[in-house]
């Protein structure tokens, strides 16, 4: 079958980088499977419980980069109890024991202990890159170990993690010999930072391209940092408050003008609007702007800023920008591809809001839009149809109406037609999140038209099992389905058990599935872990303090409704680290 020696094929495979493609080529024939597995360096595991670390190492001995995801997506919204799982430690232990040459670890929604970080820092001599997204379980002591021991560290990227501050002065532990940093992001840390140590670190890191600091870094310090690093491309600002008439501010303005490479700006975790004009000079080069944590900027200042940003491709903003502000975005940012509008006051009275009008304006102005996350107070079918017509290129479309079952305010109708238009028009749609009043119709449309759909999030939607069945039957490429508070029950769950082996996972909470159906599914499909999560006996406080869990067993009444069910395909069998409130059937 092979006309070329293995080394040549290996060279060709080097050009194949996406893990989906590598998965495909490994299926061609035995010899390609062997060559591929021995040469794969970057391994991505979408569900850490789908396979054991030992099996991964056995198959991919040349592994250099490990990406893992742990908790189900709805864990982001407090729907998964605290101790559910997703520990990275066993993976690190296995990798360390096997002496693989691990250089990079990327984790999302996992529990990372200080022990894990310490083990990473002491086990892998060539370790260069640590990226943690939405993780928890570690403190600044763990960071201290990484800083001190990973002498070749290039990337330390902490995104939206819950990190306990133990006043470890972790930044001081980068040795003087550490000069290799390319990315340093500690914007999510709550504690103080030794500013002088940070300035010295930046000064000796000529390759630093990305620097995102936390609130503790003052404008004064920022000025010094930028004067050491005019080559920065990605800047996350901490505190941005100063007397605009001061010498420091004057120096900052001049320093910023020298930073001609900045294309991405974020942070402003503390900001005085009158200081913003200092950054206008970099706005014309910006392709990415994230002001979603900048609570201190009123709409008028946001609008002034946006007018300078003609090249934006990605914009993350708070809804205080308002519909009028979005109209300005629409007229200024013709290259916009990704827009996220977050609520600035999720439980508030809704003084500053965005509605369907803002989104419609965007759709007229930003024809290249392909990714959307939009929190708003209301949406209409007419608006969604207009958006669908204007922007057929959506790959990700996530709409969140703050009142989850709100109908179209103009017609009082469900939003089935609007979302139907979206899936029909956007033939490349891979990810969709629904909200608003929705019947089974929307799922009929999704099943019919959303041929490329990989992930669907459903909340408070649908009228019967048919809804879920339409999706399971129609969406051939579905990988992840997560449903909450919707009337889908046993008939839907059991309609096509084989489907779940083609998917990564299914989450159903506050639906109509019974224990009996879950047991039946588990019996039929041994390659699935069907987990029942029952934390209903715990109050919120107990759950948070990890107190008095109630052991969940499969012995309940089969007709009993299951509050939370999470199933996923796996080669590893039931997991051995499940807490008491999780029962794998």
């Amino acid at each position: 079958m092979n006309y070329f020696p293995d080394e040549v094929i290996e060279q060709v495979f080097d050009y194949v980088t996406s893990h989906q493609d590598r998965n495909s080529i490994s299926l061609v024939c035995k010899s390609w499977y062997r060559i591929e597995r021995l040469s794969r360096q970057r391994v991505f595991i979408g569900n850490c419980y789908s396979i054991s670390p030992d099996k991964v190492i056995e198959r991919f001995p040349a592994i250099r980069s490990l990406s893992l995801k742990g908790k189900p997506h709805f864990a982001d919204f407090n729907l998964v109890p605290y101790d559910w799982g997703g520990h990275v430690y066993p993976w690190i232990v296995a990798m360390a024991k096997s002496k693989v040459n691990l250089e990079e670890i990327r984790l999302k929604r996992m529990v990372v202990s200080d022990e894990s970080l310490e083990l990473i820092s002491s086990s892998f001599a060539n370790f260069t890159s640590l990226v943690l997204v939405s993780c928890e379980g570690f403190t600044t002591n763990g960071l201290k170990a990484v800083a001190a021991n990973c002498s070749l560290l290039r990337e330390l990227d902490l995104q939206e993690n819950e990190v306990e501050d133990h006043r470890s002065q972790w930044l001081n532990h980068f040795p003087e010999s550490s000069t290799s940093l390319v990315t340093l992001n500690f914007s999510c840390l709550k504690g103080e930072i030794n500013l002088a140590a940070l300035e010295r670190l930046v000064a000796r890191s000529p390759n630093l391209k990305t620097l995102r600091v936390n609130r503790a870094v003052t404008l004064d310090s920022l000025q010094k940092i930028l004067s050491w690093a005019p080559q920065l491309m990605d800047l996350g600002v901490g505190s941005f408050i100063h007397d605009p008439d001061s010498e420091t501010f004057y120096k900052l303005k001049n320093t910023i003008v020298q930073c001609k490479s900045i294309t991405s700006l974020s942070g402003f975790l503390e900001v005085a609007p009158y200081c913003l004009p200092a950054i206008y000079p970099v706005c014309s080069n910006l392709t990415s702007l994230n002001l979603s944590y900048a609570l201190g900027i009123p709409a008028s200042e946001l609008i002034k800023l946006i007018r300078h940003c003609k090249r934006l491709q990605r914009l993350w903003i708070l809804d205080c920008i308002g519909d009028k502000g979005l109209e300005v975005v629409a007229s200024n940012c013709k290259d916009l591809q990704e827009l996220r509008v977050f609520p600035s006051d999720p439980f508030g009275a809704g003084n500053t809001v965005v509605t369907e009008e803002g989104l419609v304006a965007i759709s007229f102005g930003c024809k290249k839009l392909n990714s959307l996350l939009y929190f708003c107070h209301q949406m209409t079918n007419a608006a969604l149809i207009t958006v669908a017509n204007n922007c057929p290129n959506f790959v990700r479309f996530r709409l969140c109406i703050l009142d989850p079952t709100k109908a179209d305010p103009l017609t009082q109708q469900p939003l089935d037609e609007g979302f139907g238009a979206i899936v029909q028009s956007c033939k490349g749609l891979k990810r969709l999140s629904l909200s608003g009043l929705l019947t089974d119709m929307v799922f009929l449309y999704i099943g019919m038209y959303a041929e490329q759909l990989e992930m669907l999030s459903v909340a408070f939607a649908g009228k019967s099992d048919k809804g879920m069945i339409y999706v399971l039957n129609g969406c051939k490429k579905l990988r992840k389905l997560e449903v909450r508070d919707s009337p889908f029950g046993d008939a839907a769950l059991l309609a096509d058990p084989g489907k779940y082996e083609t998917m990564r996972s299914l989450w159903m909470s506050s639906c109509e599935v019974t224990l009996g159906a879950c047991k039946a599914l588990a019996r039929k499909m041994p390659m699935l872990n069907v987990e029942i999560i029952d934390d209903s006996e715990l109050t919120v406080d107990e759950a948070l303090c990890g107190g008095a869990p109630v052991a969940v067993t499969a012995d309940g009444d089969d007709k009993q409704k299951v509050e939370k069910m999470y199933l996923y395909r796996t080669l590893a069998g039931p997991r051995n680290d499940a807490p008491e409130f999780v029962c794998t059937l």
Partner: protein
Amino acid sequence: MAFQGELNLEATELRLGLPGTPAPAPAGVRKNNKRGLPELQDDPCEESTRPAKTQVVGWPPIRSYRKNCLQQRKTESESGGVYVKVSMDGVPYLRKIDLKLYKGYPQLLKDLEDMFKFKAGEYCEREGYSRSELVPAYEDKDGDWMLVGDVPWNMFVTSCKRLRIMKGSER
């Protein structure tokens, strides 16, 4: 809730009423044996931080990290409490005051004068507190000691870490 009639919630088998509200249970409604919305049930103090709107666990779908940041920022700006220590040279004990309680410098200075029984005198931009031995100063975020009154009030409140009434010996 007012809109329940229009939306015919029974048909979608959802209930958005407050927990504990007796509701006709149509066939198929899930057994409500799970804990109610804790925010509204258990802790009466919590209600003051949230409006009376019904809240659903995990909705709107915002990452906890983001929600905590927003919440923290809101309580910082709302519940006030920019507490700073105040010391005076020669006085053994310190005081603590909440800068948020003052609307401006005159009020603050009057209070300091009352608290420590001294007179700061008149402030003018050029000469500071020219007619006084004791001068109010504050440590700002950069660690520098600044004269109270030089910067706009709001900027002062956000940048003041502590206050010190100094003996202005050069004067």
